[in-house]
């Protein structure tokens, strides 16, 4: 067990190292950030000064080593455009993204589970076919377009929901959240729903497939043969078996949701890290781009690591020795 965890941690560190190399050197071939800072009447001397200030006068490999050294101390450099440490910007905006992603997750489960359940119980009814068709569309359609349609419908035509921004915030345990105010909820509704669609489709499909398998099992028959009420058989005996694969898959997809928030956030101008990334890309704010990528990849690798370890602890049937299946 300890060996397995150790190996997974080493693997995760290796992935992170490779990512820092790729991201750092990759980002370095683009644009010349000095142009961003130099005014048009800037002389050669003033350009050089900017170069030195930004640390761009050294060779790339030296810059990388400095970057790695700083990274080890949790410092990912200063944003060119904001002039503050990149990590502080990320920490400042990450709660908004996290709130959006969690809200999307909740919506995906709250809507997806019942729909998948229904489709699994009555696979031949036309409602089930409609549900499955919708989930196919949810898989296919680019979520940004759904976002646009929602803005058009609920903001422009009906005027029910605000199209952009995050709304009123309240501070809970030092984190500013919007889901506790009415205005915040109104702002959260559309972006969260848009972001949830892909997961929702996945939940529907997993639930339906899982339920159809579980319902033919002996233990469900046994529960019924003992006269256990149907709501209890479905809602607990079957449900608990379904939740294991769903939770596993959602856990693994959660990093993807954070990444996809880039799209949702730029449509709805949600002030999270995704919107920040797109803005940083448009002005070539290198440190901020690198910081975002390192941050998200780290989070992703950690998430996968934690899920792997948790899963192997929970389910003794998982073969620890085997690598990726």
């Amino acid at each position, binding site marked *: 067990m300890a060996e397995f965890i150790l190996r997974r941690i080493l693997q995760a560190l290796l992935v992170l190292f490779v990512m820092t190399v790729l991201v750092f050197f990759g980002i370095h071939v683009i644009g010349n950030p000095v142009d961003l800072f130099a005014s048009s009447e800037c002389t050669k001397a003033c350009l050089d000064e900017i170069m030195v200030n930004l640390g761009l006068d050294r060779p790339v490999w030296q810059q990388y080593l400095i970057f790695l050294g700083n990274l080890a101390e949790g410092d990912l450099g200063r944003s060119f455009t904001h002039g503050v440490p990149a990590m502080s910007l990320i920490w400042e905006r990450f709660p908004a993204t996290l709130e959006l992603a969690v809200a999307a997750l909740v919506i995906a489960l709250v809507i997806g589970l019942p729909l998948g359940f229904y489709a699994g119980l009555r696979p031949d009814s036309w409602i089930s076919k409609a549900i499955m068709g919708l989930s196919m569309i949810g898989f296919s359609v680019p979520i940004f377009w759904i976002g646009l349609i929602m803005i058009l419908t609920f903001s422009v035509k009906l005027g029910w929901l605000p199209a952009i921004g995050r709304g009123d915030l309240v501070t809970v345990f030092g984190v500013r959240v919007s889901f506790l105010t009415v205005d915040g909820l109104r702002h959260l509704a559309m972006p969260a729903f848009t972001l949830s669609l892909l997961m929702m489709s996945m939940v529907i499909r997993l639930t339906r497939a899982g339920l159809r398998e579980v319902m033919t099992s002996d233990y469900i028959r046994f529960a019924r043969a003992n006269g256990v009420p149907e709501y209890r058989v479905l809602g607990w005996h079957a449900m608990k078996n379904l939740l294991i694969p769903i939770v596993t898959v959602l856990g693994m997809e959660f990093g*993807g949701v954070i990444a996809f928030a880039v799209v949702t956030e730029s449509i709805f101008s949600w002030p999270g890290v995704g919107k920040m990334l797109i803005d940083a890309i448009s002005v070539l704010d290198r440190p901020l781009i690198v910081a975002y990528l390192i941050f998200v990849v780290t989070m992703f690798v950690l998430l996968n690591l934690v899920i792997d370890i948790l899963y192997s602890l929970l389910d003794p049937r998982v073969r620890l020795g085997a690598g990726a299946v």
Partner: protein
Amino acid sequence: MIIAERPSRLRAFTKAFFRSPTATIALCVFVAMSLAAIFAPLIAPQNPYDLRSVSILDNLLPPGEASFGGMTYWLGTDGQGRDMLSAMLYGLRISLIVGLASGVIALAFGTLVGLVAAFRGGWVDSVLMRIVDLQLSLPTILVALILLVILGRGIDKIIVALVVVQWAYFARTVRGVALVENARDYVDAARGLRLPPLRILFFHILPNCLPTLLVVATIQMAQAISLEATLSFLGLGLPPTRPSLGLLIANGFDYLQSGRWWISVLPGLVLLVLVVSINVVGDRLREVLNPHLRG
């Protein structure tokens, strides 16, 4: 024997495919859209790239409105006065080219990697599969974003980015199938006949990977088109001079708030229909070719 068997297997497969009315419709829709894209220059009322034929005076006309020149814009015009129908036909063309090209290249490269991994085995296999695992563990949109930030804009650039995010699926699929086939008797027999390894690889193992590859390729193509649209929407994919469906939608976004819905909604519908029909076809292929194939 094998030659005699092929057509009947193909016929059985075709028959099974068309037994589903939904899949048949989806395939027809896809073929129709592909034809429309191929012949866009012939059927489009206007060449949206030709600035001489586009009049800024005609901009933002709602669907059905006629221009000063007497031409009717059945689907309206966009911010630059381009006919939406024509722009969409050309956009569809670009979306399909991007999806198809990236799919084919990713398929070729991924297949090669998968075959090499399966056939060589040992450390080659483990190194290649580690890379595949790494690639698959990262969200596609994130990888594509990084690449496009580095590479910049352009059709070739976005194809490269899409190939990078797709090849690993093909490699993993082919390796899996090839490993199974490799252990089969007919491959042993071919080895017994001392056929050259490459011949065995390409004439015996590869053909058996094709059904699975076809399924993966179809679904990947839908993914690629959808991803390209998303990236273009974020301003990272294609140059504005050659708008794909995604870019058309993005352009219309600015006008959405003022109620000019058609510029965004119409290309979006086309995109939706395109991607859904490809996915339905892919799903059906999966059912027909291999009921137990895992996605």
